[in-house]
């Protein structure tokens, strides 16, 4: 298996900016990925199977909700440490990183941020332990980039709320024990609801025939007169800002994750170029190949600098979601281009499951679009520059 790790892709010696703990976290997750994920992932991808057997191991390692406080069973990592976790997981596979992102940033985070203390105590420890899985229901079949327009609604009734509607493209939907569902409460303000598996009227159906993120589960969620008790409303949630805050957390992880996928492609290409002989010499000795390798390393190095800076800003609490938008937009696009370039270095071999490149490339096509499309992040930055939102109709 020719999966390459992310080791040694550090042109600007950013390691010297990391703490011992951050380096250790990266090293530990990296060896986990090399030993537990890389040997099985190509097979999982081909079979379209999410390796559920990894969940207890990922939990034991501490990557689920890694940046949430220790008192809820989490590791209490800082944001750079958390980012490095995402980088290493996605060097393995975007699907595994997606699972970890959804569990931590999209499910545990809103419970932590908008939930009551009872809700936190009930859900966060088993979620950190991988014993309760979560999914995040915001996107709808007709509302992707414009989630505020959602049609899912929750109407107040005597015993709580009656939830009706549907959600689409939901990672982990059909294995989740708890769905964080965003709905218009009484047709107005968007609020978060904890919908437990088995709730009457709630159906999750797996989406089949994906050509991307094949090692993770994607589902549709349907709600028909689901009765949600009052204690399952996230009390501090209110307005579209709440789910967008969750997305900012997840997008931050994606910016780092994309780096991992890019580094894996780059390393594979470098190793291959040094060994592949054509015209009597390694293809690494040809200028056109060197241009490709130099281009990849340059783009990866720039993306690393972005991640490091956004991570430190986030740790200091001095950042804006627009910074995360630029990081996500730039890094995923960069990773996708790296995958394509690396594929060309490997020639026909580049399309084979033996190498991680084609899998990364197909995965990154989803990552390019989910959690805010490349185009939406571009417009968010445009809004930041001009003060004029280009997407409000």
């Amino acid at each position, binding site marked *: 298996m020719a999966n390459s790790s992310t*080791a*040694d892709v550090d042109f600007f010696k950013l*390691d010297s900016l990391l703490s*011992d*703990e951050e*380096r*250790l*976290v990266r*090293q*530990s997750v990296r*060896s*986990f990925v090399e030993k537990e994920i890389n040997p099985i992932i190509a097979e999982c991808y081909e079979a379209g199977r999410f390796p559920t057997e990894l969940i207890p191991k990922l939990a*034991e*390692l*501490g*990557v689920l909700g*890694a940046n949430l406080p*220790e008192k809820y069973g989490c*590791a*209490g*990592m800082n944001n750079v*440490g958390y980012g490095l*976790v995402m980088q290493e997981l996605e060097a393995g596979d975007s699907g595994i990183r997606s699972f970890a992102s959804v569990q931590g940033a999209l499910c545990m985070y809103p419970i932590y941020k908008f939930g009551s203390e009872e809700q936190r105590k009930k859900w966060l420890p088993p979620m950190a332990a991988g014993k309760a899985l979560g999914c995040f229901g915001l996107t709808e079949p007709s509302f992707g980039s414009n989630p505020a327009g959602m049609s899912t609604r929750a109407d107040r009734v005597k015993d709580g709320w009656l939830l009706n509607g549907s959600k689409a493209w939901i990672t982990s939907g059909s294995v989740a024990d708890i769905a964080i569902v965003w709905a218009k409460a009484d047709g107005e303000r968007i609020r978060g609801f904890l919908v437990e598996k088995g709730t009457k009227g709630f159906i999750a159906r797996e989406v089949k025939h994906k050509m991307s993120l094949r090692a993770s589960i994607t589902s549709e969620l349907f709600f028909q007169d689901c009765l949600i008790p009052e204690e399952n409303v996230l009390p501090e949630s209110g307005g579209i800002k709440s789910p967008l805050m969750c997305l900012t957390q997840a997008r931050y992880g994606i910016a780092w994750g994309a780096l991992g996928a890019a580094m894996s492609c780059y390393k594979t290409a470098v190793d291959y170029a040094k060994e592949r002989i054509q015209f009597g010499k390694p293809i690494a000795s040809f200028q056109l190949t060197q241009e490709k390798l130099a281009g990849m390393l340059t783009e990866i190095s720039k993306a690393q600098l972005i991640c490091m800076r956004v991570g430190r800003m986030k740790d200091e609490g001095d950042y804006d979601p627009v910074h995360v938008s630029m990081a996500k937009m730039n890094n995923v696009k960069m990773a996708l281009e790296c995958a394509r370039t690396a594929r060309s270095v490997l020639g026909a071999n580049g399309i084979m499951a033996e190498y991680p490149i084609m899998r990364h490339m197909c995965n990154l096509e989803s990552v390019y679009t989910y959690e805010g499309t490349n185009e939406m992040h571009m417009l968010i930055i445009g809004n930041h520059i001009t003060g004029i939102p280009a997407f409000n109709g």
Partner: protein
Amino acid sequence: MNIVVCLKQVPKKDSILRIGADQKWIDERDLSYEMSEADAYALEEALRQKEKHGGEVIVISSGPERVRQSIKEALAKGADRAIHLTDPLFNSGDPAVIARALAGALKNEKFDLIFTGLQSDDYGFAQVGLILAEMLGLPSATIVMEVQPEDSGVRVKRELESGWFQWVKLPMPALLTIQSGINQLRYATLKGIMAAKKKEIKEVKAADIGFTESDAISAQSIQRAYFPEKTKRTEIIEGKPAEAAAKLMEKLRFDARVF
């Protein structure tokens, strides 16, 4: 049961090595480092013994600031505290010098066992453990594959040549050099890494343990470091096909060792 584990930090296995300007050792610039493999197994064995029998695991390592990374890794995996020999004087010499420094730092520690890796991944002398045992007046066993503490001492399984093993019994305290592969290494968990921040790393300088310039004098020195020199030799095996094939098999098995 209290166990001391001696750790060494070495250049990473996949490092691209260059010979240093003085031709005596490798150029250490731009290298990444990791815990020597056999030492990682020694640490794992100590943690497993602690989990079974209680007590404390103390790690000790000598080297510059970068060594803290490996020390912290050991603490993150579950060691209780650490001793870091930071004085450059400790690291300037041969295995006897480093053993002398370790012995000095362990003089006042209470322990039942000392574990070292069988040998380090860089120099590969396999001597520090044994010299340390002699200096501390401890019995020792090498190439240890299994550790079974008993009331009156410790039973250990040693690896011999050609798939043979040997059980020996030692009184405690004792020093054991641990073979790689004796157990399965654990990952440092994220919680463990965060918890390690609060654990003690005691720094020791030469003066703290009465280690002098004369203690740092090496009896051996490296004359030259160089890459294996490639020589190409073609040998034609003569004779009838069956004889030539048999001869070829012999060469593949015993010279090339590909079988």
